[in-house]
């Protein structure tokens, strides 16, 4: 971009370094990557050092410092995508399209990159191409897409299915994504927009709202399960000239896609929930942090927000509530799982690398720009609306003794009916498997890679916070799948790629564990390797954030629940085999110095 064009973008963003994400997005929308010259000019205008800009750009999957092709394909490499045939698609792109894995084709036309779960596990294999979603790919579709790209077609002309169901077909969205809603409950049932704000909240004090949420015993739906009422109360009590409400729509946990469906079908509820939270804690501003993979919804969501603003639900005195104002915006992410961690989400919104902060202080005390901030999951806000509407008592009566209400689960993998199910807490795993038409199930991953891999003797366990907790992801693997090769290895690679690198154990141990896995898979493992993995895995609890705390879970939980799968692969009667091949290790230097390698 020219110096002038860049200056205009910076000016539009008030030369504010906190708007760096938006500025970079605008540059990427225009030319696909940031050039060295752009970095220099941005550095001058935003007063950020060049190295700082580079480290921020390189942190995010979807920012680049060199061209990634006129068409950029990000092919999902999740475990689910793999079992639905990703490899075949990739092969077509490489062999027939001249693509290079994680690079650009020599003619500069097509870039092919891997990316972790893009939230389409119910319609894999899927890819993002120039920000648009293409689902249910087959080898044939891949060939067609290549053909179209070579012809230079615009993306919207490459669809061969009608738009998805429900509001996927909205003129501001026009996506081919399907909702796959299989079971509805209070959250997913049709509702009238902003009714609760109009009818109930306007008659209640902030304290009364808070009281209902507490009464409901609602716990966060993003994974960690922190009591929402308590979080709101802390933020309400915190000192601050301003306060913020953040909606966490980063939905990065592989296998989860329930927020995608809520954002599509229930955006008004989400926004209503944010307004209600704002009212309860005394915040005037909201930010919805939308993962880049869901960029296809951005125009649509902005349209909804604008409409609500025009209808008087956002801005000064929403729904006529006196002495209260609330407005919001969308912050688009740029590809990073760890940005879903609430303090990393805030860092990212401030235009930085999404590295989790040390706590305390917690975001409710010092969050966005140092102001008290509540961060909640998309689904949590939707639940809050229903709680205010029907009362905390009503909500409290749903679910189990310690897990109240309903939970949206995203079911994917080997089953007949993948999709979204709204369930009261308390179903057993067996109920769920039956409901979704899963046969000959070998393993179920509950709660994404950071959760637990459950074996078939544990199917009577119950979905609730104290047993099988989940942020929403349920991935099913049947008898055809290998637990270690198809599941554990993929999850470990995910954590290795997604660690922000701040903490030494999180940066190193998953890598070492993965090397152990490779050793075991190559037939050189011994019982000592299993013992090492368990010991090293236990060290992960000293990391700073939840990613590090759970990054060894795929191994620890499969060692616990699928130990025989490991033991079968071990060498017997020895507790040590070296993986170092001396001949191989001494070959290069021997050749370089004209000598014989050592045998």
């Amino acid at each position, binding site marked *: 971009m020219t110096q002038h064009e860049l200056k205009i973008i910076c000016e539009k963003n008030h030369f504010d370094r906190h708007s760096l994400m938006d500025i970079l997005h605008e540059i990427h929308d225009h030319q696909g990557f940031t050039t060295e010259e752009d970095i220099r000019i941005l550095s001058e205008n935003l007063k950020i050092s060049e190295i700082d800009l580079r480290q921020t750009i390189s942190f995010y999957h979807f920012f680049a410092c060199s061209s990634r092709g006129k068409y950029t394909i990000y092919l999902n490499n999740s475990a689910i995508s793999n079992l639905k045939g990703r490899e075949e698609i990739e092969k077509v792109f490489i062999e027939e399209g001249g693509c290079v894995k994680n690079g650009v084709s020599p003619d500069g036309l097509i870039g092919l990159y891997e990316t972790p779960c893009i939230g389409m596990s119910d319609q894999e294999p899927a890819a993002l191409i120039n920000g648009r979603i293409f689902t249910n790919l087959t080898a044939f579709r891949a060939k067609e897409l290549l053909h179209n790209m070579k012809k230079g077609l615009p993306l919207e002309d490459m669809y061969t299915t009608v738009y998805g169901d429900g509001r996927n077909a909205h003129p501001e969205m026009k996506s081919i994504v399907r909702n796959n809603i299989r079971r509805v409950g209070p959250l997913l049932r049709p509702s009238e927009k902003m009714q609760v704000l109009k009818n109930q909240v306007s008659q209640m004090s902030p304290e009364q709202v808070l009281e209902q949420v507490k009464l409901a015993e609602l716990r966060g739906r993003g994974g960690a399960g922190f009591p929402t009422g308590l979080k709101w109360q802390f933020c309400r009590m915190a000192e601050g000239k301003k306060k913020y409400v953040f909606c966490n729509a980063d939905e990065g946990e592989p296998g989860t896609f329930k927020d995608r469906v809520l954002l599509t079908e229930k955006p008004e509820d989400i926004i209503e929930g944010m307004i209600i939270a704002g009212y309860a804690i005394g915040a005037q501003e909201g930010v919805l942090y939308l993962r880049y993979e869901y960029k296809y919804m951005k125009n649509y969501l902005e349209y909804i927000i604008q409409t609500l603003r025009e209808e008087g639900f956002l801005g000064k005195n929403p729904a006529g509530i006196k002495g209260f104002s609330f407005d919001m915006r969308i912050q688009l992410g740029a590809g990073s799982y760890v940005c879903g961690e609430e303090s990393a989400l805030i860092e990212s919104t401030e235009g930085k690398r999404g590295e989790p902060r040390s706590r305390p202080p917690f975001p409710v005390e010092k969050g966005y720009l140092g102001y008290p901030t509540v961060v909640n999951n998309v689904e949590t806000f939707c639940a809050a609306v229903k709680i205010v509407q029907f009362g905390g008592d009503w909500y409290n009566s749903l679910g189990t003794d310690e897990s109240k209400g309903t939970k949206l689960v995203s079911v994917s993998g080997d089953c007949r009916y993948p999709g979204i199910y709204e369930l009261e807490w308390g179903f057993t795993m067996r109920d769920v498997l039956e409901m979704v038409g899963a046969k000959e199930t070998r393993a179920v991953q509950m709660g994404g890679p950071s959760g637990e891999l459950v074996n078939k003797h544990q199917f009577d366990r119950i979905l609730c916070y104290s047993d099988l907790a989940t942020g929403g992801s349920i991935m099913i693997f049947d008898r055809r799948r290998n637990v270690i090769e198809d599941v554990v290895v993929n999850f470990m690679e995910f954590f290795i790629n997604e660690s922000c690198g701040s903490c030494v154990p999180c940066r190193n141990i998953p890598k070492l564990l993965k090397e152990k896995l490779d050793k075991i898979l190559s037939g050189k493992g011994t019982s*000592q390797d299993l013992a090492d993995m368990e010991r090293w895995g236990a060290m992960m609890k000293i990391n700073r954030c939840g990613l590090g705390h759970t990054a060894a879970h795929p191994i620890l939980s499969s060692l616990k629940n699928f130990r025989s799968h490991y033991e079968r692969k071990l060498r017997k009667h020895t*507790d*040590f085999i*070296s*993986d*170092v091949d*001396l001949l*191989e*290790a*001494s*070959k*290069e*230097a*021997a050749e*370089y*110095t*004209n*000598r014989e*390698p*050592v045998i």
Partner: protein
Amino acid sequence: MNKPVVATASLAGCFGCHMSLLDIDERLVELIDLVEFNKSPIDDIKKFTKDVDIGLIEGGCCNTENVEVLKEFRKKCKTLISLGECAIMGGLPALRNDITVSECLAEAYLDGPTTVNEHRILPNDEELPIILNKVYPCHEVVKMDYFLPGCPPSADLIWEALVALITGEEKEIPYALIKYD
């Protein structure tokens, strides 16, 4: 009763860990009372003359000789200990692990800014060990029984660990001795 026998070696290390061992100061006298040294730079015994109870290894394996020595130690020692960061993780020498060994050799002997090597000769005498493609931590080459962390591990840590091994009494190592930030 015979005194326990100790052997030590420095592979791809800087002898810092050995210096730290000497740093136990007057306890050295006590140590000599407690143990007998065999192959070690400390007494300059070059070859094993008997089986050994405790082997202390400083440094990882960066060349074929290191591997040979380490394997010999494993054969001779009942208990083998990785002493310090380089033995445990490869340490500073392992910084080259992301660079090919040819590039390293070229930089060192051919193209370095301060190198004068008119005939572009690379060291290749048969006597010289061959450099490995990477620096390997000891436990990837042979089984190691214990690990004493630190760069170097403090004299106190080495002392405590040795005494525990010799006396056979498990010791709680104070946190301060293995805390490095």
